[in-house]
């Protein structure tokens, strides 16, 4: 077994330190070492989008990175969306519009939508569908997810953003 390396990073505003082999994927480090199990691991080859997180402000696939590569980085995961018991407007919209069934894809969807709605104030349905193209959902048929994004876009404009 290769020697473990120290990884220090910030997740959702909190500092963490762990040690892992260089081959450990960032998503597995989050889930197994930091016990942040909100981020899901699906296809492990960058296609399904379930493991999408923000690294230094940009969405990335956490299954296509090694944890050691994130040493010193600032991450945001799905756990960083809600304020205590109060859901983030994007989460609330997914709840209201039934934008999930089994929920497996939801963490990745939420992080993708979080970044998207930071940049797009009044997205068209086509723009929303393109933004979601990198996240697969096997349950919903996407219709309610698109509705949720539309609701969230409206709420965020009303309340002045994230």
């Amino acid at each position, binding site marked *: 077994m290769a020697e473990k390396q120290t990884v220090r990073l910030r997740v959702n505003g909190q500092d963490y330190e762990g040690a892992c082999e260089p081959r450990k994927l960032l998503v597995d480090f989050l889930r197994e070492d930091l016990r942040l199990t909100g981020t899901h691991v699906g296809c492990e080859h960058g296609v399904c989008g379930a493991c999408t997180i923000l690294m230094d402000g940009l969405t990335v*696939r956490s299954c296509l990175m090694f944890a050691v590569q994130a040493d010193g980085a600032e991450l945001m995961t799905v756990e960083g969306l809600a304020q205590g018991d109060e859901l983030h407007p994007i989460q609330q919209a997914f709840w209201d519009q039934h934008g999930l069934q089994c929920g497996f894809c939801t963490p990745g969807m939420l992080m993708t939508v979080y970044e998207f709605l930071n940049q797009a104030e009044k997205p068209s349905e086509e723009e929303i569908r393109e933004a979601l193209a990198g996240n697969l959902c096997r349950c919903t048929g996407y219709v309610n997810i698109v509705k949720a994004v539309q609701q969230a876009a409206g709420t965020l404009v009303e309340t002045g953003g994230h």
Partner: protein
Amino acid sequence: MKPAPFEYFAPRSVAETLDLLARYGEDGKILAGGQSLVPLMNFRLARPASLIDVNRVSELDYVRPSDGGLAFGALTRHYRLESDPLVAERCPLLPAIARLIGHVQIRHRGTIGGSIAHADPVAELCLAAALLDAEIDVQGPNGSRTLQPDEFFLTYLTTALEPTELLTEVRFPGLPADAGWSVQEFARRHGDFAIVAAAAVLEAENGVCRTARVAVAGGAPTAARSPGAEAALVGQPLGTDAFAAAAEAAMAEADPESDLHASADYRRKMVGVFVRRALEEAASRVPNS
């Protein structure tokens, strides 16, 4: 699955990277954006003994003006092609083609040098490099050399890069102000790998084609220009007849293989269709056409 164990190095400079390549390059791999390599490692289709991670080699992350064109450090991420105003001004084809690369999450990590060095035959940046005769700089233990795409891309996923060499910079020429251009890609869904893609740059005088560049991805083991299609255009009035002749020539030159996604015959047919569409759009963008 999970990657097999490897020895991990994270150099901070090109010099340090070259030292590591000299020692470990034969059984090692450079890790840049990782959007192709890490899936292969997760499935254990690739098991490099050493991984040389260049993500902290910040001297390779830049977009600079170069002779009317653009020089990209190998570590420059794909999304910079979409967002950098200098790229849009000098070579608007590049932002258009970059938007076809995977999804935004992929473009945040994937690098220009990594895509070129991976040499996927349907990769958008390999198509752009072939179309525009990009210059590819590599550095190795014996100094540096510059290669043209037809020297660099050898066959499927195979380049002229030696195990001890590092791709450091890719230079694209600017597009002439009076050129019309187009990129047309055929994929099952937005963000999927292309089945076939075609790109064209045309210049014309009084409706007659003066220069033509046509390149195809998915018709051969590497993305490449189509000399037959270009010859069918130069000196001809830009219109249906010339486009049909060029599409015919590109199809005749194509030698695709069948796979899970499409048969060879279908791919060849699509080469014709997408070359024609690229020419129609490029011609419509030639000023005063």
